[in-house]
């Protein structure tokens, strides 16, 4: 038995993971339709990370707001800071090698989102995760 999480957390996490799986399936289905009818909208790596980000953010937001994301020993504040720092690092790195002012050639290449954005999108995912944690910390103060 998993002693890190209590029974309510395990129950909620399994519920949210199932829902996240359905979101991923829906996103993959929609992506397949868009790709079939309109052609690719993004290069493979950035497409993958955007599709993964949707269910991940859903699971994270639901579990953080329903207090099932962290075990008793973990801290929301620490997690928020780690996610924030990692997000800043990842989202900031592309600014070194991407000239965002040359949007048409660097960000959108041949009508598709460029793979160069992969790190930026991944970093944004971590920044949003950090923001979710901070919102939860703030809202918990008023409970």
């Amino acid at each position: 038995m998993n002693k890190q999480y209590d029974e309510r957390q395990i129950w909620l996490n399994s519920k949210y993971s199932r829902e996240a799986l359905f979101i991923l399936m829906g996103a993959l289905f929609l992506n397949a339709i868009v790709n079939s009818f309109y052609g690719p909208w993004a290069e493979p790596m950035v497409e993958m990370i955007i599709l993964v980000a949707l269910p991940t953010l859903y699971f994270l937001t639901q579990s953080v707001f329903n207090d099932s994301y962290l075990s008793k020993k973990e801290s929301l504040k620490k997690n928020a800071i780690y996610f924030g720092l990692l997000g800043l690092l990842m989202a900031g790195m592309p600014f070194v090698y991407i000239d965002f002012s040359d949007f048409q050639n660097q960000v959108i290449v041949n009508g598709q989102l460029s793979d160069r954005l992969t790190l930026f999108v991944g970093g944004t995912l971590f920044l949003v995760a950090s923001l979710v944690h901070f919102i939860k910390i703030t809202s918990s103060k008023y409970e």
Partner: protein
Amino acid sequence: MAKNLKMKSARVLNDLTQEALADRVNVTRQTINAIEKGDYNPTINLCKDICRVLGVTLNDLFWEENDNE
């Protein structure tokens, strides 16, 4: 689900906070809060642990009398 006021009053009678009771039965404070609010239906094992800590029986805390009886 209805609020479990019996559990809340038993906890207060034992002079325990939600956090203290949660520590004694090895769950999070939010889980105790959810049980008291009626948002979560605990397993029989957790019910037994809570009853042991509060010094009451399962019937005292978790048996709901039918209003028509």
